[in-house]
């Protein structure tokens, strides 16, 4: 038996990969399948799942409502569509802002003296080692009415003799955007850095020899060659932003509700797992569609693993 296994390469490979494949099958694929099944189910009065085939959760998610103001049988309720749209635009805005902020920094590190590069990268990673939840809390303290940002602006205003009332920044969409950008910025810096660092110096020398100016070099060499990094970074940022609920929970209060908050509440407060499952599948489909079109246009960078 053992001898036969020693000669059978295919069986060896299967055996080696089995634990991982098994684990992923039971804890990723089966749960996804269960989520799909439950999303067609109904909620029983005591919060359990009744298995049937009903599209009610999906129609409700896309605005069909039977709870109407003027006694109509059905009407359009934009609540959930708004939540989906808000999450999508927030994810786009966050990604765009993160790219704008990450690019110059990544460029700076990649062009720095090789001996100093590791130190600069290290400095990007240190904030990442504090916990995700703690980082949101740090912003909560900064953005508060009594927080540091208002104190600094107030001090500047008093220097210039401008009257100033502290700004209400916490519990606004802007606060959620800042929090998201802060959480995911390093995930953009690292892949962009990786692809910028690979660019051969001789390309820059050639460009200079051929008379290209700084802007032309940027547009024709640096940007195109660093695209794989931007693509990888976008995937690493966009997907988690779509599903995160802590940032909006703490910095948005009850004002900014995203799909993540909607799903979380269905599973914990409202206790309707069937509706939560439907929302979670729609979330997954939205991210898959965006990722698919994005990677098809720009290619799937190896930088994901490198980061």
């Amino acid at each position, binding site marked *: 038996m053992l001898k036969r296994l020693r000669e059978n390469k295919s069986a060896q490979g299967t055996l080696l990969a089995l634990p991982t494949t098994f684990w992923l099958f039971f*804890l990723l694929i089966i749960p996804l399948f269960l989520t799909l099944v439950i999303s067609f189910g109904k909620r029983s009065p005591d919060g359990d799942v009744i298995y049937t085939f009903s599209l009610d959760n999906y129609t409700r998610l896309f605005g069909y409502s039977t709870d109407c103001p003027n006694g109509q049988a059905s009407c359009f309720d934009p609540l959930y569509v708004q939540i989906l749209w808000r999450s999508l635009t927030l994810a786009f805005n966050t990604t765009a802002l993160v790219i704008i902020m990450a690019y110059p920094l990544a460029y700076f590190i990649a062009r720095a003296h090789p001996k100093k590069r590791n130190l600069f990268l290290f400095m990007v990673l240190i904030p990442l080692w504090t916990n995700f939840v703690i980082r949101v809390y740090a912003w909560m303290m900064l953005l508060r009415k009594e927080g540091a940002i208002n104190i600094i602006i107030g001090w500047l205003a008093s220097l210039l003799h401008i009257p100033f009332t502290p700004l209400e920044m916490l519990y606004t969409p802007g606060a959620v955007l800042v929090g998201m950008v802060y959480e995911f910025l390093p995930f953009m810096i690292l892949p962009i850095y990786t692809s910028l660092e690979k660019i051969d110096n001789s390309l820059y020398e050639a460009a200079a020899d051929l008379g290209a100016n700084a802007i032309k070099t940027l547009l024709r060499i640096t940007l195109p060659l660093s695209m794989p990094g931007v693509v990888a970074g976008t995937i690493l940022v966009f997907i988690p932003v779509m599903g995160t609920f802590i940032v909006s929970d703490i910095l948005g209060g009850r004002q900014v509700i995203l799909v993540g908050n909607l799903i979380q509440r269905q599973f914990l407060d409202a206790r309707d797992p069937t509706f939560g499952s439907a929302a979670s599948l729609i979330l997954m489909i939205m991210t898959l569609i965006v990722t698919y079109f994005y990677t098809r246009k720009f290619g799937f960078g190896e930088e994901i693993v490198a980061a």
Partner: protein
Amino acid sequence: MNPFRRSPFVIVATVLVYLFLYAPIVGLVLYSFNASRANVTFEGFVPAFSDRVVMEGSLVKSSPCGPFHWYCDLAKNDDVAEAAGNTLTIAVTATIVATIIGTMAAIALQRYDFKLKPFSQLSLYIPIVIPEIVMGIGVLTLFSQLFGWVNEAFNLSGDARLSLGMATVTISHIAFMVPFVTLVVQARLQGFDKSFEEAAMDLGANEWTTFRRVTFPMILPGVMSGALLAFTLSLDDFVITFFTNGPGSTTLPIYVYGLLRRIITPQVNALSTVWILVVFTAVLLLQLIQNREQKQHS
């Protein structure tokens, strides 16, 4: 053109982004010395060292630990100690399992051909392309349906009933960590020369000896960085833990989140500061060890 040339725009942007990255952390650490228990405004450092804690309203007037009042307070907090213990237990267990099975899978995917291969490779990308919350509620549904069914089928009651806890958190952590370990080790395996292994075999080493003496030492740095990545992912995880934990398996991120929804004293800041310092020291030590090993080998 000098490749080290930097435009002033890049330098200004760099400084601003670093400022953006560090300002919140500086604030966090500063407020851990706050004399105000309410922690809304900074009321100065806790003033004096004394025999006992003196409070005046929500202000700490003096404390045996002086400015480090909240750190002493933190040390007396049993919930934090328990949460820290849980976090480490889960991270260590899950890292060991994920590293072993993940490395095995990487070798299989890189060196062997088998029927399941395309499926195994594809399943690795699931945690990367799917939002964590989708995985979180998926495993929660799996466990709650499975446990409900088992408890009913075997008529379990009391402590014998299956419920969410350390085991469910650890099992779920392994699921999202394994792909990262496998992908990192696979990348390492891709880059190295097969001729070393062939040479060993030619010289009469059997497969196991070849693996032990040639392949494994060569992929070890990849395995180590995979394990380190998995470990930090587990320590930092909030979402999966949030949905799979139960009574007695609260981790630090979950504990802090719970605090943020209730009263926030500077103790949270002290906890965060200690956290940063511990992780910073650990990573620095690891870096030093790696550097020394590299120097020895070269």
